[in-house]
């Protein structure tokens, strides 16, 4: 059984700048990595490489045994959540999610979209234009959009941004559910407790490289925060 999400010597240059420099890791089904690091460490670039949005300068990103930039089927297995919402403000929440569902060839796209919105606790606003929704609600819609096609791999870039306590709880429970169903995840976050709560592995990224990776089970959050401070020279956000 090949790892669901795998990177080998993944490198990306922008001009002469090494944004991602020889990253190698593998996640099996159900495993999830929380990725910590200061701004500019290359976390977002790494996510975009794994999503197939960027071409690697060297190395490879592989999803369930196929190259991330390979044929179209591979793209269907990924769900992406970015800093931006990736939503069209002029369309409603339902239209946005349904559009994503159709693009992925989901059966009964409307029903699946409503279910995804329901799961994120925002079904009541499905007919609202996205531009009328608050940032937190938009984030919920954005997450619904990313999971409507039941992706095998989820790439999340600071998904807790803008979410209130109940939204964060909904997200965490949904991520647990997806993991139990066999999805792999990479979660970029600044928040120690939220990150460690949903992950099996915790990694610190610095200057385009993985500075340290360890298993979460049996980890002491305070000790981890200390180690991070030592590595990165900055504080992490507390719980």
């Amino acid at each position, binding site marked *: 059984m090949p790892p669901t999400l795998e990177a080998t010597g993944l490198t990306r240059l922008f*001009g002469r700048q090494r944004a991602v420099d020889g990253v190698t890791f593998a996640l099996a089904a159900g495993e999830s990595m929380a990725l910590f690091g200061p701004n500019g460490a290359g976390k977002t670039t790494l996510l975009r490489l794994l999503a197939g949005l960027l071409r690697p*300068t*060297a190395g490879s990103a592989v999803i369930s045994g196929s190259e991330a930039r390979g044929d179209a089927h591979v793209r269907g297995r990924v769900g992406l959540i970015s800093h931006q919402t990736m939503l069209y403000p002029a369309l409603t929440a339902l239209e946005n999610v349904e559009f994503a569902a159709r693009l992925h060839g989901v059966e009964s796209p409307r029903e699946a979209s409503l279910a995804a919105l329901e799961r994120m606790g925002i079904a009541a606003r499905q007919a609202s234009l996205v531009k009328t929704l608050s940032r937190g609600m938009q984030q919920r819609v954005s997450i619904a959009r990313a999971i409507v096609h039941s992706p095998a791999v989820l790439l999340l870039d600071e998904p807790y941004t803008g979410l209130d306590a109940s939204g964060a709880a909904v997200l965490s429970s949904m991520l647990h559910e997806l993991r139990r169903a066999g999805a792999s995840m990479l979660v970029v976050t600044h928040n120690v407790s939220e990150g460690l709560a949903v992950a099996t592995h915790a990694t610190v990224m610095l200057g385009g490289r993985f500075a340290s990776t360890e298993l979460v089970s049996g980890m002491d959050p305070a000790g981890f925060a200390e180690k991070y401070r030592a590595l990165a020279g900055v504080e992490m956000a507390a719980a």
Partner: protein
Amino acid sequence: MTSNSLTARDTKPQPVIDWMFWLAVAAVAFTYVRAIWFTPTEATQGPSQKIFYIHVPSVLAGYLAFGVLGIMSIVHLWLKEERADRMAAAAAEVAVLFFAIVLITGSIYAKVIWGAWWVWELRLTLTLLLWFLGVGYLVMRGAIEDPMMRARFCAVLAILQVVLIPFVHLSVYFVRDHMHPMPVVLKPSSPSLPNSMLMTFLISVASFLLMSAALIRARYRLTMLRDAADAAEQGGMA
């Protein structure tokens, strides 16, 4: 190291100005000496006819450069060879240069022979368009900072521009009935010139083609030197 890394291969710096350039300069100089002093003046048009020896060779030099631009753009997209992109950019600059010469000399010629600074004659119109295409390419190059994106977009643009040319040629040709009659010198059939003038003409064509190639090569090498200098400067960070 992938083929995207320029520093790996071009470690030996090549001179920007070398024998080819000086040979081209000598050839062009020779052409002018011969054209001005050793070639008979044409009976009906007088000395201004000698602009022919700059005007037409510049057209061919420009076409050569544009051809290099098109071919190198295809090479870049197909083989992902970054050096092809640098050569395409060099060729674009040289093409714009020579087409500008064609337009200016054509304009002078038009004023002397027909009394008008500009005529919408088939070849001049086509040259003007090619000049615009070249300028558009250079503007695009200036508008994108990321080298990989710049190379890719410019290659796409150049290839589409090459596809466009036959259509513009056809359009201008269709309208030509309404246009100013074509001058006798620029007719498509082989020039009916006496031998000495033909000789000068052929020499001028050869020297301009050589100059075009030399300029493209020089410009390309200049770009490569600059890239190498940038890489060395940031060598500590890489």
